Structure formats: structure tokens, C-alpha cells
């Protein structure tokens, strides 16, 4: 009997290990620094993580199909400068910079997807190339200089509140809900898992594998575009050098959240918790005045530790 109970306990720990780890980290930080668990600080953390969160959710789809997207950080910068270029005061209505940025992200994602599926090139290579291409495009478009003087309406997306909640947080929440529903309750969501789990079996089941992969890369690009808009609006600047290595933070969050880099396994909730863990650690160590040098070491340890924990479960 007692061994049965122990089994149930270990199953529970395996299933919710990451969530428990997150809660433990929060409790420890609350004890270490009282300011941590205040509504003010919680909003700060959530706003900080929203950009990485939106990127991470996009790349979750790609990673579940068994792919990877390394171009995220560059796409973020490109879509940011594109949006900023159309967001000067008294020029275009707000829909234009947003629409163009999302469109740019979507096109880059589609380009990734088409080359990967039709060209049969490894996702790592294609998106590595696209990382450089998108960065170059961002520099060309902006002339290498930050694009400033943006309209207040545009900046509201990054810095404004709606019903006392910062807009980036609301956008992040919306993305969580829509993507969570897509992955869990729709056919395309199920197909994404199937393609990542066994591409040959998915094909033999009548699934149009290329379309499914294309969907994942397009969604990933689109969300990178959204993140680009939010970032540009938050720093009131289209910054062509922004977002360097952001893709790695996004991938780290996905991995911490228990999504397998081999594909076929993962969840939006896992990714969200992964994003929160990274955010809370950064914030907490800031509050504790720990040097940012140490923060990097801690983050790295957590990434590896999370996967070790997951491995023992799976």
C-alpha cells in the first residue's frame, strides 16, 4: 500500500514538477525579499516576460513538430523597425504599423516553412540563415539607426494600461489562451503533435505534413512580429540591434517547460511556466542585488536542471 502511495506521489511530482519548482522559487524569493510578492512587482515581472513569452509560445509550436526557429530575435528586430517606420506621429493609423509588422513576421515564417518543407533543408540551417537575413533587412530598412519619434498611440501598446493591466500582459494572455486552445482542442493542434511524434505515421494517416509544418513556422513568425511591435512600443524605438539571442531565451523557456526538442511532446502551459521561471529568477536576483553575471550562471543551471528533472520523469 505504502509503495502505491509513493508511486502516486512520484507520478504527481513528475507531472507537476516544473510547476512545483516554480512555486518553490516564488516562496523562497518572497521570504528573501518582501517586495517580491507585491502586486506592483508581479506586474513588473509579467510585463518583463511578456515579450519572451510571446516568442516562446510561437516557437513551442515549431519545436513540437520537431523543428526549431533560430530567427526569432532577428525577426523581432526587423518587425520592430518596420512597425516604427510607419508609427511616426500623424502619419498612418495604428493598424498600418501593426499590420505591416505582423505581415513581415508572417512572410519570414512562411519563407522558413517553405524552404524547410519543399526544399527539404534542416530547420536549424534554414532558420540560422534567416537569422542573419532578417537582421540584415532590419539594418537596411533602418539605415542601421534606431527609428525614433513614435506616436503616443503606438507607444501605448508597450507602455499603456488597460483596466489597470499593462497592455503587453493582456496581449501575452490573449496569445496564451488562443494558442493553448489551438494546440489542445483543434485538429491542427493534434496534427502538430502527430507530425513531431512520427512524421511517417502522420503522413500515412492522411495528414498533409508540409501544411502542418508550414502552419507552425508561420504562426511562429507572426508571433515574433507581435513581439516586435510590443518591444518597439515599449522602448519607444525601432531598434535594429534589438533582440540578439532572444531566440535562445525563448527556446530555453520551452525546454524548461517540458517540451521535447525531439518533437511530439510539450504544452503551452509548460512553456508559460518556463517563461515565468526565467522571469522570476531574473527579477528576484535583481531585487537581491545579485550581479547580472551570476544571473546568467543561475539561468543556465536551471535550464539543465529542468531537463534533468524531466528526463527522470520521462
Amino acid at each position, binding site marked *: 500500500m505504502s*509503495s502505491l502511495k509513493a*508511486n502516486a506521489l512520484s507520478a504527481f511530482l513528475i507531472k507537476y514538477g516544473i510547476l512545483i519548482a516554480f512555486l518553490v522559487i516564488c516562496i523562497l524569493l518572497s521570504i528573501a525579499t518582501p517586495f517580491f510578492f507585491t502586486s506592483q512587482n508581479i506586474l513588473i515581472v509579467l510585463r518583463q516576460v511578456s515579450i519572451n513569452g510571446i516568442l516562446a509560445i510561437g516557437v513551442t509550436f515549431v519545436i513540437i513538430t520537431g523543428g526549431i526557429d533560430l530567427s526569432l530575435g532577428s525577426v523581432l528586430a526587423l518587425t520592430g523597425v518596420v512597425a516604427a517606420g510607419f508609427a511616426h506621429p500623424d502619419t498612418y493609423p495604428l493598424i498600418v504599423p501593426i499590420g505591416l509588422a505582423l505581415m513581415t513576421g508572417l512572410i519570414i515564417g512562411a519563407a522558413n516553412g517553405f524552404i524547410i518543407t519543399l526544399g527539404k533543408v534542416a530547420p536549424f540551417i534554414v532558420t540560422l540563415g534567416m537569422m542573419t537575413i532578417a537582421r540584415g533587412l532590419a539594418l537596411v530598412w533602418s539605415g542601421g539607426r534606431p527609428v525614433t519619434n513614435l506616436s503616443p498611440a503606438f507607444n501605448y501598446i508597450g507602455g499603456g494600461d488597460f483596466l489597470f493591466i499593462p497592455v503587453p500582459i493582456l496581449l501575452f494572455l490573449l496569445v496564451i489562451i488562443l494558442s493553448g486552445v489551438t494546440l489542445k*482542442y*483543434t*485538429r*491542427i493542434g*493534434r*496534427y502538430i*503533435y*502527430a507530425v513531431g*511524434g*512520427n512524421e*511517417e*505515421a*502522420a*503522413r*500515412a*494517416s*492522411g*495528414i*498533409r505534413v508540409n501544411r502542418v509544418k508550414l502552419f507552425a513556422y508561420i504562426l511562429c513568425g507572426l508571433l515574433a512580429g507581435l513581439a516586435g511591435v510590443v518591444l518597439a512600443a515599449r522602448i519607444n524605438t525601432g531598434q535594429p540591434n534589438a533582440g540578439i539571442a532572444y531566440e535562445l531565451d525563448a527556446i530555453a523557456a520551452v525546454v524548461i517547460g517540458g517540451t521535447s526538442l525531439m518533437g*511530439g*511532446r510539450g504544452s503551452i502551459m509548460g512553456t508559460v511556466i518556463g517563461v515565468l521561471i526565467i522571469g522570476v529568477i531574473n527579477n528576484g536576483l535583481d531585487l537581491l542585488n545579485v550581479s547580472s553575471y551570476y544571473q546568467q550562471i543561475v539561468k543556465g543551471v536551471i535550464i539543465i536542471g529542468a531537463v534533468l528533472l524531466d528526463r527522470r520523469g520521462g
Partner: protein
Amino acid sequence: MDFLLQAENISKSFPGVRALNNVQLQVKKGTVHALMGENGAGKSTLMKILVGMYRPDEGSIYFKGQSVHFKSVHDAIQSGITMIHQELLPFPDLSVAENIFMGNEPRGIFPGWINLSKRNRDAKELLERLGLKIAVNQRMGGLSIAETQMVEIARALSNKAELIIMDEPTSALSDKETSILFDIIRELKREGISIIYISHKMDEILHIADTITVMRDGEWIGTYPATEVSQDKLISFIVGRELNTIFERRNHKLGDELFSVSNLDGAKFKGISFSVRSGEVLGIAGLMGAGRTEVVNAIFGLEQITAGTIKVKGRPVKISAPNDAIGCGIGLITEDRKRTGLVLSATVKDNMSLASLKKISRGPFIKKRKEVEVARREVRRFAIKTPSVNQVINYLSGGNQQKVVMAKVLLNDPDIIMLDEPTRGIDIGAKAEIYKLINELAAMGKAIIVISSELPEVLGLSDRILVMREGRIQAELTANEATQEKIMQYAMNTTGYNYQ
């Protein structure tokens, strides 16, 4: 010293299951000892104990008269016990010689160096000893499955193995390759090496084995000299009941022509024409590599067709992807369920619904409750042994996995059903159930195409049999005129070549 290996009173439990209960096994030097039993009978667990992958809860193992307690596979190999697994895992980009001596390289003059010339010389010697014409510097990935297996045997010999365990060694071999393997096994016997031979194939075992041990449900049932036990007796020991006939003779009426292909050409086949009627089972026989799988895959849109027409209910259809084929009412149960049939990381339910999600969706959304309902219904219908529809399918036995694949394909309610080796690697009980199901589908008026390398299976199931060789149809035989001998004559280039 009478026995090379003696395992006595071996018991082993896993959480919730007693996998082995008081099992014994005695292997004489220089003999082939066959181990039979349904999937889940405990054969694999016993073998994993013998090679040090598991430790027994109870019991003792004596090898060469000494009590042994292997802590790892390495220990077992050092002592002279090697296992050749059913799924071979060579290093495809390394040479044959490198594969043979992997982990056991002859030392060179400096620490960490390999004596390359000695390695290649020894490898060559080993291959010659087995009578193989394989170049030692050849890339491993370029070998056939049979050759890969032979190299594995050479590898075992390089470790001075005295007991070689072969798990379903012929499951991917043609009859000709099997006969070569049997020659090698006889040669090994002459050298005093013992073999534990695990197989589901009755005729093979009666042919090659000296002694047969039968296991069922984790228990030792009996050990018999191969010359003193009949096939029927063995089957009844294995399944634990008398099995009168696994094939019911059917006699139902054939309907209209449902499906036909004419002059289909593809990369591995040419000029394929045949038709199937409603209620008819068409068997396709032939050796490995005859192009059978390629034909059904091409019909299903998994491979390219370069010429020819496909007609469904008399109307020409164009199929460029499996999706099109499913739309035309064609279903394919693929040859290799792990590679192309199942998403092993997904649940029973998710695998089952994968091909027919459109039917249980509203707009883009899956009707989750309906999906569970359907999965539970199919689990009951096919008598699939699983604790729940949410069980990850990787944990099911081969027979139960195969039933899930069949349920998945049949949920689309196809009129034309193609089954490629539907009973490969599954036990007799599950086989009988699948035969029954095929007959039921035919009785419902479906057109059925069955590819099988097991001749009794083709003969028992089919109304009509096509025999393929080298990508072409060599003969079409009716159920009445077809015999094993006739099929083999057409299937093989040289007549009369048989391992028996």
C-alpha cells in the same frame, strides 16, 4: 559437464506484474534451443536476465558449471553470452570491421591506439569462417538486413561467445537468406557454440532446433526434443488450448468489382494490373524486395506512380497523397507499425482518431467527448488490452498495437482495405483475431488486399493470390490451385530452392 547454461527457479516481478514465475532453462553445449511463447509470455524478460540487463528476484544461473551474477551486458559478453536483438543497431557510417570490433578493438602500439591491420585481418577471418562474402572495409549502412545480421554474428564470435541468443532473427529475412542463416547456425553448432533461438515461426523452429522450451504467462510450460513434438501440440502448449483451425474457411459471395489498377509503373515495380471485387480477399505473395510493399504504398499515395491508372468503383481516380486515397475510400495498414503506423509517444485514443479527426470535429475543433467515446468503443470491439484509452501506446504489446492501427484505418470506413504484413511479430492468439477480422470485413463486402510473407497466411486468407517477383506480377492463382510450392516457384528465380 552436461549443460552450458542452467537457469533455475528464476522469478522476476515488475511493479504490478509478475513477469517470470519459477522458470527454468537448460541449454546443452553445441545445440540450438528454441524458446517459444506468445508475446508477453516472458521470453524477453528471461533473455534480458541471461544477458545481464535485468537481475532476477529469485533463482540462480549457472554458466559453464559456475554460478554467475551478471551486473551488466558487458559482464555477460565477457563471460561468453551475446544477444543479437531483433532490431539491429549497427553504426551505418562505419565500416564492417569497425562494427565487428566496436568496443573490443585490438590494441595498437600506444595506449588508445587501434591495431588497424590486425583488426581488418581478424574481421576478414571471422567473415570467412562464416562463409560470408562481405568486404571488411565496406560501409555498414550499405549492407542488407540479412548481411547486417551476419556481421552481428561475427561480432559475437569476436567476443568469443559460447552462447548466442537470437531474437526473431528471420523476421526480416527472405527464405533464401534464412537458409544461409541456418547454414551458419549449423556451422556454429559444429564449433560447439550454443544458440537460444526465439521465433514465432513454427516450421523454422521444427527445422533448426534440437530442443524446444515453451513459456506462457511467465511460466515454464515444458521442454521438448524437437523431433518428438508436433506442430499442433506445440501450438496448443503455446496458447494453452487446442487450436482447431486458425483459419475459418469462408464461403461467401463475391460482389462487383470495387477496385482495379492497370499498368502501374513505379520506381520498384512495372506493369502492375489487377482488380478486386467486393467481398474478395486478394493475397499478394512474394519474397522480400519483390516490390509488393511499394505497390500498395504507391496506390495509397506514399510513393510515386509514373504511369498507369487506378479505378475505384469503375471510375479513374488521381492519388498523389494518402489524403486523396483516404478520400477515395482506400485504407492502408502499413508494413511497419512502429515506423509508419503509430505515433509511439501518443495515447491509444490519439492514435486511433488520427486519420479520422474530421469526422469527429465541429469546424476546427475536435469533439473531445465523442473522441473518447469512439476510442472506448473500438477498444471493446477489437478487445484491445489497455488500462485506458489514455495509455501511451508504446506500452502496449505488438498485437494490441496492431489492433490500434487497424482500428485507426477502419474508422474511416474504407471500402478498399490494404493490409501489408498485418501479423508480423505478433503472437498466435492475436493473429487468429486479426484473421477473423479480415474475414468479417470481407463478409461486409469490402475489397481486401493482403500482403504476407507467411505462406500459410496467404493461402488461408485469400480467394485469389498474386505472386510478385522483381517488381512484376508473375502469376495469378485461385485459392483452389494455389499451394506453397507453386507460390514459391513463381516467387523465386531458381526453382526448387528452399531451406527445407
